[in-house]
């Protein structure tokens, strides 16, 4: 896949995230990392490995097992002048902190009429395909899109992982930064050195194609790229649009891409019903009704609880399903 292919100085997504944390903690001494097992161990994925040795136990903190306190205390730390980067061990466990994220972190600027704001980044790995136990793969990003005040960021490539994380930490508003655990080490690519940031609300076309547009974010982008290769063999050229951030959403970029192909498939790892794909579809048909000449199909996980790892392939979107949906759409 082009980006993974490109030359020297390659990094994995995990290395890009770790590098960005090192750089930003060195650049801004207000930045601190807190969460379960993030210090001594360096996190269950070792994303934060080395940070405690480098920046000390005051700025890299192993917390008790309490997600609500991690998020709630991060808000207080931010009000007190720190810049917390909190890790929730898996996105599924943000449910334990839900009352502190949407109603508190996201609304504090509004509630205080700007007197206070929450410069807090919540990092959380998520997504399936790696046979993790229950809760660990849950893709619940859509739930946060109903909490105005927080931004939702979901990189799929190492360069974006760095650029979006630096942007997130520096953003004066709270950001939920979603890490695709299945890609942590498998996707490698060049990462711009130095102070590389990616502005929120800018989508990225990762493949050009005239026949159909595949819209996705996070790990699903790579499923779409694989599907596009497959489709290409059958003479169908697909564009792949990586949204990169869901809130704010790059509506202009999305519509521009839609108008080029007039056929669209949206792909995500969350269950179909109520997934953020529905928002993408609703937005497209509202803004580009005229240029659509086939119904927009969604390829998503099934509307069931996440099954055990051994069963997840029946649950998750697959390349085969994306290819089939794209063909139906093109042939409509």
């Amino acid at each position, binding site marked *: 896949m082009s980006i993974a292919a490109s030359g020297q100085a390659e990094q994995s997504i995990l290395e890009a995230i770790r590098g960005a944390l090192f750089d930003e903690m060195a650049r801004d001494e207000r930045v601190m990392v807190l969460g379960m097992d993030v210090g001594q161990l360096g996190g269950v994925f070792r994303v934060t490995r080395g940070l405690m040795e480098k920046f000390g136990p005051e700025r890299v903190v192993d917390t008790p097992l309490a997600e609500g306190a991690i998020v709630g*205390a991060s808000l*207080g730390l931010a009000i007190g002048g720190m810049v917390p980067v909190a890790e929730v061990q898996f996105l599924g466990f943000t449910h334990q902190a839900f*009352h502190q994220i949407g109603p508190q972190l996201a609304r504090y600027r509004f509630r205080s009429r700007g007197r206070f704001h929450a410069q807090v980044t919540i990092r959380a790995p998520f997504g399936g395909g790696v046979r993790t136990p229950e809760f660990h793969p849950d893709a619940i990003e859509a739930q946060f899109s109903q909490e105005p*005040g927080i931004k939702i960021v979901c990189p799929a490539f190492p360069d974006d992982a760095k650029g979006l994380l630096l942007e997130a930490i520096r953003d004066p508003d709270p950001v939920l930064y979603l890490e695709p655990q299945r890609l942590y080490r498998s996707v490698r690519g060049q990462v711009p050195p130095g102070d590389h940031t990616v502005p929120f609300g800018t989508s990225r076309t990762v493949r050009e194609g005239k026949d159909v547009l595949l819209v996705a974010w996070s790990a699903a982008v790579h499923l779409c790229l694989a599907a596009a290769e497959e489709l290409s063999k059958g003479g169908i050229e697909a564009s792949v649009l990586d949204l990169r951030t869901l809130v704010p959403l790059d509506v202009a970029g999305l519509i521009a891409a839609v108008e080029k192909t007039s056929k669209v498939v949206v792909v995500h790892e969350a269950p179909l019903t109520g997934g953020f794909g529905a928002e993408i579809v609703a937005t497209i048909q509202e803004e580009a009704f005229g240029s659509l000449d086939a119904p927009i199909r969604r390829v998503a996980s099934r509307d069931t609880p996440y099954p055990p790892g051994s069963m997840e392939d029946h649950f998750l979107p697959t390349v085969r399903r994306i290819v089939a949906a794209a063909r139906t759409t093109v042939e409509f």
Partner: protein
Amino acid sequence: MSSAQVVDALRLMLLSRAVDDRLIKLQRMGRVGVYGPVHGQEAAVIGSAMALDPNRDWIVPASREHPAMLRHGLPLKNMFATYMGNFDAAAVPEGVRLLPRQQAIGAQLPHATGLAWALKLRRTGGVVAVYFGEGASSEGDFHEASNLAGVMRVPLVMLLINNHYAISTPLHKQTAAVNLAARAEGYGFPGFVVDGNDLMAVYSTTVDAVNRALAGEGPTLIECRTYRMGFHNTSDNPKEYRDSAEVDEAEQRDPIERVRRFATREGIWSAGQEAAALDEIRSEIETAQRQVEALPKPGAAAIFEHVYETLPPRLQQQRSEAMDDARPR
């Protein structure tokens, strides 16, 4: 407490009671949404607040601690604006070490732990005092915030205002614990029960806790045992769930009367002084209310302010629609 402090405290207590009366009146007139009075809890709230230094310490309130917020620097006008629906004018002014009131019960507790943690990390000195009710002490937030505060040994004073009710729920349905201060041991810091209607006792216990925190000895939990003499809020009618005998009995322990008697005995307070104080208070309240009434009502655009530092395109569009809708047709 010095004589001067006692007089200040008594004055604040009278102000608190007068503010209760005014906002209840305004609510009955339909000019205030919902209001929850401090009535009965003045000694607990004011005694603890008097132990804090507004130029050094922070207050993280729940929603029934107006006199503490006023004493700490919130202008009376801003407090009235809170209830009279002018949210921009209600904001805590720059420089005042106070967080906004919290309407999600218990949610302020982890914020307080985090803020105290920041003071410690930044070595700025000062402590954080967080207020919450005995009802809030049943929420997971209380537990998680307390345990984290203990582990990080943060300069936190936890003021549990046990007024024996959470709306209609009496203490014995809230917990089987003999006292809630006992929970502190489970977090590795001391807890104390104090008569929340005894101004001096609350004050001195809080002073000790502040000193422990300043000395780097970590958090303290103080359970102030008091009684909610009024209704939960203006939509509540306590007669539906508690008998008046209980309330009558509490009237005998009115915290204001207690301080008034003491101050009079000490010769530092007189009927004349009280009359003068009440006059001043009345005009302060008049002024605050009038100032708020004189303010323009915020327009549609205001709900799009302070959502984010910079408004994303989709919200810019929604704002222009909303301002358009709001234009009189």
